[in-house]
């Protein structure tokens, strides 16, 4: 056991060290290759060249990794989407045509829009509220950790948890799902929550909100802490109430971060399939694109063409978000 730990440690150190060494060494080499000593004209020429090269040293590993691990598969996916299920024969747009005509696909699009409308907003909202409120609390850190905890639970664990919450036993029997237990206690009839079309989407969303609020909270609380204390003090003196300070002083100052969190969760919503897969597997009209894609990719050997087509649709769905982010970035960079 000890030797395992030691060797694991060695491996880790080597791995992390290699990454750090890359950055250090390449930068050293650049500085040595283009010295900034000597006559100013030459030095500043060298420096300009450095300034042109250095961004790529910084970006190099990221770009390389992104290209191999993400761009290349994306291109492969794009190509696959024009091929049949075995990636053997070219089929043109027929995978897309199929998708448009597929009821499941249309259902997924509808559900995804629903998810996109609810989940990012809810996560950001709760995350912000919790971050702000716990920030001013003695037991704030404990509260935060508790809210954060779902993030740390694996999806399998989370689905077990929520199965227990939504569990349904026949009317009159002992309910082991707390939701139905409450309903029954209040005199209502127990429901099979996950089998109520349309509304079941919301029961699934609750799970993701439950998990992701911790994410929003952590990021937003980091941002909140970056707000200059004086501006809040100034507002306090201006007579603003806590509520007003929150909405008029704090929120606008971390607007960028809110947008970041929103974007991140939006994209995550597009990707998430584990919850749907384990809770309903898209039944009772709760299908979403990512799960649909997953199903076509692996179930029964899969159909690479169709799953690729759905993946392409997924990727296209982020284009507006992408454009919006770029706009925002460009605005920030003005005068820099």
């Amino acid at each position, binding site marked *: 056991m000890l030797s395992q730990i030691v060797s694991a440690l060695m491996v880790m150190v080597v791995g992390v060290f290699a990454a750090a060494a890359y950055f250090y060494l390449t930068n050293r080499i650049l500085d040595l290759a283009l010295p900034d000593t000597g006559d100013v004209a030459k030095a500043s020429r060298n420096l300009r060249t450095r300034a042109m090269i250095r961004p790529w040293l910084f970006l190099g590993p990221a770009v390389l990794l992104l290209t191999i691990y993400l761009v290349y598969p994306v291109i492969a996916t794009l190509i696959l989407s024009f091929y049949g299920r075995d990636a053997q024969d070219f089929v043109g747009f027929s995978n897309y045509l*199929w998708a448009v005509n597929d009821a499941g696909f249309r259902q997924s699009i509808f559900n995804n829009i629903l998810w996109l409308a609810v989940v990012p907003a809810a996560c950001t909202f709760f995350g912000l509220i919790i971050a702000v409120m716990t920030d001013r609390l003695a037991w704030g850190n404990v509260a935060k950790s508790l809210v954060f905890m779902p993030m740390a639970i694996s999806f399998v664990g989370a689905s077990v948890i929520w199965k227990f919450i939504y569990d349904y036993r026949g009317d009159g029997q002992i309910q082991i799902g707390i939701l139905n237990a409450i309903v029954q206690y209040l005199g209502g009839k127990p429901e099979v929550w996950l*089998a109520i079309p349309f509304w079941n989407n919301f029961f699934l969303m609750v799970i993701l909100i439950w998990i992701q609020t911790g994410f929003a909270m952590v990021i937003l609380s980091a941002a909140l802490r970056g707000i200059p204390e004086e501006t809040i003090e100034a507002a306090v003196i201006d007579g603003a109430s806590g509520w007003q300070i929150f909405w008029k002083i704090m929120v606008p100052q971390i607007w960028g971060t809110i947008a970041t969190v929103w974007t991140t969760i939006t994209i995550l919503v597009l990707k998430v399939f584990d919850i749907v897969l384990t809770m309903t*597997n898209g*039944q*009772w009209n709760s299908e979403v694109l990512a799960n649909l894609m997953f*199903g076509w990719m692996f*179930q*029964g*050997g*899969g159909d690479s063409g169709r799953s690729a087509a759905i993946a392409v649709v997924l990727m296209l769905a982020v284009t507006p978000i992408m454009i919006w982010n770029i706009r925002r970035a460009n605005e920030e960079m003005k005068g820099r």
Partner: protein
Amino acid sequence: ADLKFKPGEDSKFNWASYDAYKKAHGDLKGETLTIFGPWRGEDEKLVTTVLNYFSEATGVTVKYSSSENYEQQIVIDTQAGSPPNIAILPQPGLLADLASKGFLTPLGDDMSKWIKDNYGAGQSWVDLGTYKGKDGKKAFFAFPYKADVKSLVWYSPENFKEAGYKIPATMEDLKALTEKIVKDGGTPWCIGLGSGGATGWPATDWVEDLMLRTTTPENYDKWTTNELKFNDPIVEKAIDEFGWFAKNDKFVDGGAKAVASTDFRDSPKGLFGVPPKCYMHRQASFIPSFFPDGTKLGKDADFFYFPPYASHPELGKPVEGAGTLVTIAKDSKAARAFIAFLQTPIAHEVWMAQSSFLTPYKAVNTATYANDTMRKEGELLTTATTFRFDGSDLMPGKIGAGAFWTGMVDYVSGKSSAQVADQIQKAWDGLK
């Protein structure tokens, strides 16, 4: 590796076959065999006891692994070119797909002949493992090992005795019993289709069992290849027969609403409620592992054969079953030796003697079954007049592990059999 039963000690076991095997394959020291299988948890421990005998005999180092998403993993690994030596899967549909893409190695005609000769209902097992290869030619790819019987109805003998219920011999009797229990104030059935991402599959077993009891085995076979359309009245009738049981609020524990959402693993627990929540539960031979701890098979719980219709005497006593299939995904001497090992009775008996293992292999000593219930199940397997495999496993994955499941959930949730059948057929059409 330590061997669970010492070779030569217990005479129930066919040690001779083991010794012979050892002699023939004892020269593989240093080789490694990677096996990817569906068995996890308790089952993994059991299969390891069997694998230990193989290692012991051949000197091969076996690396067995499994996971929640092993099906996904197999697809990824084979397509990426790093498959395990041996892939064991319970889904013939998926194997057919892998075979058609050229990822599996045919086991050869000798092997298929051997299965045909040595397994009960041998031809059906051969058919189960025969797929089209990459070249389009049919070949035998999958060696069946470990089977399940599906046509079982579980009950509590003492509850039956207390209420004075008799074990029904025909479907008509079963239906009469169902109604009688309701009249007595009880609930006859526990049915649960819930299974996470696979929700719906227990219903497909019901429909398949009922297909075998309402139409010919030939139609059944055609049905699994869609020669018989899914929305054929024959199929719809079988679905409706299932509906007779499942869609009646009085017949099922929790009402029809509960059927789709109750987990299949929780469902049988109703049999053991005090007072009982239900009296009968139709499920395959693996289900006792989900009975409460300490349940004694034969005493606290037992099964009876899911009976045929008296109105269809020509269909005899059909049995539905399933099995895991062993394939070679990366050929090697050790892989071949492993298949050969599975041909020895001892490879079956070791597991039989522990629990939850049935085999259609006729040469095994049934005395090694761990208990009577298993023995009875085993006999059902070897003596069936008609034996058919789980139809949904034979259908293409997108149907058998997709549209069919979803359809059945929709069906118990309210849709009509015609709607559902149309919907599934449409999905099937979409595959072509």
